[in-house]
């Protein structure tokens, strides 16, 4: 039997989740049986403050259609100010992404606590939908057309 390959675009989202809040939130979404699209690939980091701007750019370059950085709510950071550092840094990441010609909507920073499994699932659903509307990443388009 010949397996049909779907031509429909399926986004690939790379998520950097902090160990203490967002990763636990994603875990809770799973254990609570909240349904969300399988388009997300989670990378656990100890804190969003650990996420270097180069990680986001490398992920996009390697074919991610969008990148999500998820951390603790302001004031809840396990390391006190890691998420504040990321919030400041994220503004620069967005501007650079825009400067190199990628839609800034492809990178997002969100706060998700360990008890917000529902919020995590809703965010992934919403983000997948948004990226589907944006279309494939320019890097993916280029590598496909080559």
């Amino acid at each position: 039997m010949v397996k049909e390959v779907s031509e429909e675009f399926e986004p690939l989202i790379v998520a950097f989740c902090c160990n203490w809040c967002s990763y636990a939130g994603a875990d809770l979404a799973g254990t609570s049986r909240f349904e969300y699209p399988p388009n997300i690939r989670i990378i656990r980091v100890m804190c969003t403050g650990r996420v270097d701007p180069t990680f986001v750019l490398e992920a996009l370059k390697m074919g991610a259609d969008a990148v999500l950085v998820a951390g603790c709510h302001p004031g809840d950071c396990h390391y006190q100010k890691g998420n504040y550092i990321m919030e400041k840094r994220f503004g620069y990441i967005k501007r650079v992404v825009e400067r190199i010609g990628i839609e800034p909507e492809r990178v997002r920073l969100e706060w998700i606590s360990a008890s917000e499994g529902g919020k995590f699932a809703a965010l992934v659903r919403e983000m997948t939908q948004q990226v589907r509307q944006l279309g494939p990443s320019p890097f993916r388009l280029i590598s496909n057309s080559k």
Partner: protein
Amino acid sequence: MSKRESLIRKTNAAIEAFKSQRLRWVTGRSQIKVEIDEKRYQQVVDSIMKDEIERHMIIGAIKEKGLLTVGEISQLTGLQPSRIIQHIIALRRNGVIGEAGERNRQYLYQLI
């Protein structure tokens, strides 16, 4: 220069720019305190970001192709020759690139 080359060149330059000490200082990595207002600070960061990305595009082009003239760098990166010369002055001063002879009466530049 194809769209693919341009996008990859720009992204690589942005990655290298974020690794540079100059951009790390101003984007808060080193947590420096400055006594200027936020709007002015953002303008300074934007200007440094633009400079660093363009400089790393120039460095990337020389690293990839070897000896290059300003005109050739301009063709590869899409930057204006006047802008390239400004960056070359800064990069020469910092000891990153240097002159290496001439081609068609234009100076050739190489990485040091």
